[in-house]
């Protein structure tokens, strides 16, 4: 789960990391009032995506009128498919130096890594590619955390205008935020040395580990929910993984890998998947809700069902699916591939209820669904 700047910065402030004074606003009028209070300020679009500055979503203002004028432009603007609804009005800072600091999970070391660079304000990928020598990294054993010695060691040989110890202290505080809040990414870019000699986080990116949502209930309320279509929201309510795509061949399978593969095979035979929908794992009892959902998408032309039971039993998934089919009576061609735990029973149920036989394997079922979708277009 992503946290936008306005939600992430207060988390930093809680542990004593400096952040500029700011007010979150939804209207140009509110922005004018905030600018009145703050003085010289920056108007920053709040959207869960990068490159806000390049898109014109960050503007400086020296007066309330100017702030209001910028807000009128920024609110309603579209940045990477997100419409700006909120802006942060933040006090301007005098920037002497810009640094980069981050903590993230590293799948290679299987632990957190702390990163620091003197080249703040740039993309980290850019720094890593163009000036790798400017990027300092330390792998952390999560059992012991980041020690002061480690943090000091990381920045020891850098020229940091005398702020080395203060920066080491900030890294320790960032690590505290990372651990306390189950972050999978915590990035401050830029971390600035201001005219007054203080260190301030000018922007912050915080991503909460989705698997930790259950033990971070207070935090979740401040995050930005994923941008979902109506059907995707319905899927989330049902506990079914559903992703809407732009094709017309409905895909329903169990297990993430099998569902992705069914999409791949549909595409291999020249078709376009209408969705990703999987009812594996604990969701295998949700065949009814899943079928109702996948059939609700407009413009679909055929359905391929690919069950390969292990933990998820084919007969249970088929039972739910048939229940929905019988009550909806949809007029759309449907093709099945059925194997694994509970397959025999599922095949009998399919024959008895719809008088259909499964195809011999998933390739045959996907191919038939693609052909049926093409025939439906003529």
């Amino acid at each position: 789960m992503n946290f936008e700047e306005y939600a992430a910065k207060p988390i930093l402030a809680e542990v004593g990391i400096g952040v500029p004074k700011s007010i979150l606003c939804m209207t140009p009028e509110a922005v004018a009032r905030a600018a009145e209070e703050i003085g010289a300020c920056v108007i920053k679009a709040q959207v869960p995506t990068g490159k806000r500055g390049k898109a014109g979503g960050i503007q400086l203002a020296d007066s309330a009128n100017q702030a209001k004028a910028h807000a009128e432009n920024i609110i309603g603007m579209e940045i990477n498919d997100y419409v700006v609804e909120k802006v942060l009005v933040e006090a301007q800072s005098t920037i002497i130096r810009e640094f980069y600091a981050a903590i993230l999970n590293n799948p290679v070391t299987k632990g957190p890594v702390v990163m620091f660079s003197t080249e703040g304000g740039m993309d980290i990928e850019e720094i890593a590619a163009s000036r790798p020598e400017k990027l300092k990294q330390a792998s952390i054993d999560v059992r012991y955390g980041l020690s002061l010695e480690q943090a000091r060691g990381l920045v020891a040989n850098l020229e940091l205008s005398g702020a080395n110890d203060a920066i080491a202290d900030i890294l320790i505080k960032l690590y505290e935020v990372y651990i306390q809040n189950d972050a999978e990414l915590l990035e401050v870019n830029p971390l600035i040395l201001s005219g007054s000699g203080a260190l301030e986080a000018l922007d912050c990116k915080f991503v909460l580990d989705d698997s930790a949502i259950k033990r971070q209930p207070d935090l979740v309320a401040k995050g930005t929910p994923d941008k979902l279509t109506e059907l995707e929201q319905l899927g989330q309510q049902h506990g079914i993984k559903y992703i809407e795509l732009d094709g017309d061949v409905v895909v329903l399978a169990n297990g993430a890998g099998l569902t992705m593969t069914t999409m791949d095979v549909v595409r291999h035979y020249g078709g376009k998947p209408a969705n990703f929908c999987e009812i594996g794992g604990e969701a295998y009892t949700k065949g009814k809700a899943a079928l109702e959902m996948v059939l609700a998408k407009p413009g679909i032309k055929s359905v391929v069902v690919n069950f390969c039971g292990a933990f998820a039993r084919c007969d249970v998934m088929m039972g739910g699916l048939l229940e929905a089919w019988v009550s909806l009576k949809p007029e759309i061609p449907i093709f099945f591939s059925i194997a694994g735990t509970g397959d025999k029973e599922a095949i009998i149920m399919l024959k008895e209820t719809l008088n259909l036989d499964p195809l011999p394997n998933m390739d045959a079922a996907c191919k038939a669904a693609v052909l049926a979708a093409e025939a439906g277009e003529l």
Partner: protein
Amino acid sequence: MHICRKEHAVVVQGITGKQGTFWTERMQDYGTNVIGGVNPKKAGTQHCRVPVYGSVVDAAKESLIDATVMFIPPLGVKAATLDAIEAGTKLIVCLTEHVPVQDVMYFMAAAREADVTIIGPNTAGTVTVGECFLGFMPAFNARIFRPGNVGVISRSGSLATLMCQNITDTGLGIRAFLGIGGDPIIGTTTLEALRALDNFEGVEAVAMVGEIGGAMEEEAAEYAETMLKPVVAFIAGGAAPEGKKMGHAGAIVMGDKGSYASKKLALESVGVNVLDTPMQVGEALRKRLAPKVA
């Protein structure tokens, strides 16, 4: 890493739950040497014909334990894994999905220090065909797991089931299956699983089922280049849009990172056949395993 054998003593953590019970019975029927289970609230009782202990550490006081497999909810996994490590277990199979990543990193660090193999989290488990299985794979289904000489690695259980059936349908059979899990941070990587199967007696070829996200397949490709045994692969997610988690937390493409194209290129450049559909895997293996005619 360690691969489970029929003589290995196994403890089931969370044995008394519905899934724990169902799959323990199947593991026992298949031949897994289950010597006990754990549930702190039912210590001292019997379940599935074996004693229930308060912890793996307690179980280890009575006998040597080689492996554990756990049916434990996400927030209990860290403590369960640390218990198994403390008890001196050498192999831990963690099936649970949605374990907080910082918990995973914590027990992974402890496991590394104690030289313990962790498989998972978020896996369907492992099968050593004709000997034992740990987890919830349909090992007992002869249409899917016929004994043979192919080693199978997969990040996905359902897809592996389909793939094993295809291999069996072709007339070949499986020696061992290693389900490594669909999370971004896992104990045993594709590379480690590939190396273990390469060195496992009876494995003559390897089928690798990868998926988009991360760089594990690219890493494994470097090792595949050094192998004498043939390797074939299928990578799931070629049709997946960028920036969306496709069911598995680890299955996400960001920019070029984790893309299908990158994995396919890395594998094909070292002579691994990357197939368009899983239904072509058995046939590709059969061709690669056929004795070469001079």
